[in-house]
């Protein structure tokens, strides 16, 4: 059973004129809100928001007087608590013009949000809770992280999309050119990686190690022949055929033989000349605007159509330079999706600041860390439980000292992770959970624990059958004789009568 308490330190700062009338105590004061996130019977996750209510300082007041929320966010950043996992909410008056019309919540690039006061304290608290969940974790993001433990059917399909937590990921960009006779495709992947992917990964380096590489595969075709559509004189891939697209390509992608990290594949497919232009249709038959789709826990594919030559006599092969900005925009969106950082369900009165160059806001990083920490703790618990089950099953298994010490280390790390979580130290908890995963996997996959190394008892018995069988014969015979005799003895007295 896993019992985790997630503590989020949260500061609620009231700007001038935004303090609700029905405050129970004068500012500053502390308050705690606890919530239970139900996963299953054996796993309980409680979230605990430790809120400190206070009023603004003079500096914060000056910052809040900025003209746009973006400027206010930038000005407020140096003034707040920047430890991972902590949140700062600035409450602005209901009539404030800092937030645009119709927007009640502005989530900045860092770990703060501007919230419009909503009359009573209860209304404000409801709104604050909503913001805090977006910025840290929601019940569904925790459920997705614990998807192994959630019974099937209770989970939304989106939750299955998220990548498993791992110590590292390998990102591979592949350009598929099935028709090198007609197209010579060039892509400036090196520049694009440095410009678009690197900033995101630098930010994510706290979560895991990332390695990026790319390759060009020729004569790699999709597994599905697209359907020709006369009306638009184009080729269409319907949504239901997409699952069959990947398999034949995957054989060519080449596995990551040199490392054990999961691979994220991003494929750019330039269709053959005889099949272009090629468009992907969604379930309703409408073309997908990005002409791309993603596969949960695997990666994404984008179809990149090449415009036909100006004149039919143009000599082949046609030279194509890929517009990397367009491609990378799609791939980065898919990358965020795979990490569970999509904000489609956020209510319309929320305004999320785009993270800009960095590709990832600070609070989004926290969001990932919360989910991954919980997932790591659950994984360690599962691994150690199955190890214990294995030991129960095979009595004479040998646990070497190094395996035992790994197990002890895993238990200690996972305990410290749980403690750190309940203290609100997100980073420390995450590091500890990572160590726990490493130790527990090392213990579990130790070659000395191979099931087959141990001689099963039933086979031992089979070997001794030549002994047991002849020895059993006289015993059984005499048993039969005893039975026969007792039966006779019982019958004899009746005969006498």
């Amino acid at each position: 059973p896993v019992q985790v308490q997630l503590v989020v330190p949260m500061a609620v700062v009231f700007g001038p004129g935004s303090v609700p009338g029905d405050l129970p105590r004068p500012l500053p004061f502390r308050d705690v809100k606890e919530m239970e996130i139900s996963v299953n019977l054996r796993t309980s996750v409680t979230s605990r928001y430790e809120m400190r209510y206070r009023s603004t300082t003079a500096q914060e007041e000056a910052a809040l007087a900025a003209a746009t929320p973006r400027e206010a966010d930038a000005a407020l950043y140096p003034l707040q608590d920047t430890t991972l996992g902590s949140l700062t909410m600035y409450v602005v008056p209901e009539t404030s013009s800092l937030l645009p019309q119709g927007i009640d919540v502005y989530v900045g690039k860092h770990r703060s949000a501007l919230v419009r006061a909503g009359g009573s304290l209860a209304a404000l608290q409801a709104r604050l809770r909503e913001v805090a969940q977006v910025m840290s974790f929601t019940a569904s993001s925790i459920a997705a992280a614990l998807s192994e433990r959630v019974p099937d059917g209770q989970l939304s399909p989106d939750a299955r999309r998220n990548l498993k937590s791992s110590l590292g990921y390998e990102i591979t960009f592949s350009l598929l050119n099935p028709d090198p006779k007609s197209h010579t495709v060039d892509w400036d992947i090196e520049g694009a990686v440095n410009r678009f992917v690197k900033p995101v990964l630098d930010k994510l380096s706290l979560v895991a190690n990332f390695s990026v590489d790319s390759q060009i595969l020729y004569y790699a075709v999709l597994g599905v022949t697209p359907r020709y559509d006369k009306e638009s004189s184009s080729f269409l891939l319907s949504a239901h055929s997409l699952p069959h697209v990947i398999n034949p390509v995957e054989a060519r992608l080449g596995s990551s033989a040199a490392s054990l990290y999961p691979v994220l594949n991003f494929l750019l497919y330039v269709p053959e000349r005889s099949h272009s232009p090629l468009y992907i249709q969604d379930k309703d038959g409408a073309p997908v605007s990005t002409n791309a789709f993603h596969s949960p826990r695997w990666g994404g594919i984008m179809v990149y159509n090449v415009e036909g030559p100006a004149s039919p006599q143009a000599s082949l092969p046609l030279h194509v330079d890929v517009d990397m900005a367009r491609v990378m925009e799609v791939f980065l969106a898919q990358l965020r999706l795979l990490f569970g950082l999509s904000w489609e369900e956020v209510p319309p009165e929320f305004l999320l600041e785009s993270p800009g160059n960095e590709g990832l806001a600070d609070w989004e990083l926290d969001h990932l860390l919360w989910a991954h920490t919980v997932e790591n703790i659950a994984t360690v618990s599962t691994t150690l439980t199955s190890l214990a089950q294995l030991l129960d099953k095979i009595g004479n298994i040998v646990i070497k000292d190094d395996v035992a010490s790994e197990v002890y280390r895993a238990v200690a790390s996972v305990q410290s992770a749980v403690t750190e979580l309940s203290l609100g130290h997100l980073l420390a908890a995450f590091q500890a959970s990572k160590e726990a995963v490493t130790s527990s996997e090392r213990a579990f996959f130790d070659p000395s624990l191979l099931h087959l190394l141990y001689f099963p008892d039933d086979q031992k018995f089979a070997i001794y059958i030549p002994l047991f069988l002849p020895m059993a014969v006289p015993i059984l015979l005499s048993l039969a004789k005893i039975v026969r005799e007792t039966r006779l003895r019982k019958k004899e007295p009746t005969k006498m009568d």
Partner: protein
Amino acid sequence: GGMAAAALLLLLLAAARPGPGRADAGRERRDALREELLLSPLPTGDVAATFQFRTRWDADLQRGAVSHYRLFPKALGRLVAALGVRELHLALTQGFWRTRYWGQPPLQAPAGAELWVWFQPTVTDVDKAWKELSNILSGIFCASLNFIDSTNTVIPTASFKPLGLANGTDHHLLRYAVLPREVVCTENLTPWKKLLPCGSKAGLAVLLKAERLFHSSYHSQAVHIRPICRDASCLALSWELRQTLTVVFDFFSSGQGKKDWSLFKMFSRTLTDTCPLASQSKVYVDISPKNKEKELLEVSPPPTSVHEAIVQGDKKTYAVYDLLSPSLFNTSRSLNVQLKWKRPQDSSEMPIPTLHAQRYVGGYGLQTGEICTLIYNTHPYRAFPVILLETVPWYLRLYVHTLAIITKGKENKPSYIHYQPAQDRRRPHLLEMLIQLPANSVTKITIQFERALLKWTEYPPDPNHGFYVGSSVLSALVPSVTAMKDVDVEQSPLFTSLFPSSDGSSYFVRLYTEPLLVNLPTPDFSMPYNVICLTCTVVAVCYGSFYNLLTRTFHVEEPSRGGLAKRLANVIRKFRGVPPL
């Protein structure tokens, strides 16, 4: 002797010095693919086809965290970068190249799997990197290379020098292993083909159809990765991946005694397409006239050009089909190279290669034996040294004092010997010798061994099949009969440019002898179970009678009236007047 040894070692060090790179029309490419097929009729009537695919990449694989691959396969590139590989040579071979009858091979490999790797000097734990590398390669090529461990790995000191650019040749960075038992089949060919930029979809690789390639007397596929000079000044490195595949088709026996062949007959395919990524794609057909007579054979269609070169000491003429030349596919849609013999060739004029060797196991019984190696130098007047590398598994215990090298009836003292004795279950014997071969001579090398008794779990599933001993390796600079010109490596055909050519007077040859199959004393594997059964039965019988003795109650039985026999006997007795029973 010592002088010659030093000279040979130095020569073997000489690395390939490629000439200036081909200027690519249009865009500047940093990688280039060349593909080539060499068809050579062998003296016995068989045909050898050697494919070579060479990807050259003007980038340093060792540096750079982000790697972007185009023609070079990512799987191998990452391997080289991650494990600090300087040079990698992997060959998977089925069958044996019969040098005596087929002549000097362009590229020979021992039967089974052969892997030799030079690591970078920066690699601290070479053994760990070697283990990891063999495991990964085993995954990439679906071969049992994961069986490479310390019992079959050796560190040769002289035989395997880097073929590419190398700063130092500290042989502790080298590892060499052969798995002679490895069976090579389709599952190894498919991943090999997958490494080609065009796959098997276009270009020469179209011919690589598994069902034909494995229906042959010899099949060898190899991967060679090495660093080479980027240009003549050699200031920067380029990496070269060479994928080679050699097959020998036996047409004499399968073709009703006719030695005519065509691409279609060999591969059941013809060439229709070029690989658009290749900067060079050529088919060479060896049409060298034998004995300076008139040409005996005729190729069709007419070749685009004729190339003359001195290969391995022989003057050779090749008909060249350049698949990239537009004229070739103009006349017909596909290229089916055919060769016809104008008149039947008499088999007596079979040329004998200058250097060839033979190896067998001598002796009788299951206790001792003898490994005999015969090395032939058929050169009429030149003597030359040869390095012999012998790797023998630990379970054949070599008696080094019995090592005898006899040439022309006299003892031939090797000028260099490196011997590393085996350790049981730890490492094999390694014997390296530099032997001078006098002109026109046979050198016989014998060494006796004792067969070890293995633990019963160490025997393979089929122990009576015998145990393989890997081929021994002969490396030599063979003096050339004809003087060779110094040619530009980057321009010359691929089949001439893997081994460094030292100077005009000699050429490098590496030969492998036959692998040996040695019987070891094998126990009766059913014995333990028999013993268990027998003991158990004895114990059970003893137990049964003892049990009966203890549990049965004995009582005296009253004599009964007797049966029919007794009554009969009494009647007879009555007649005889004897008292009844």
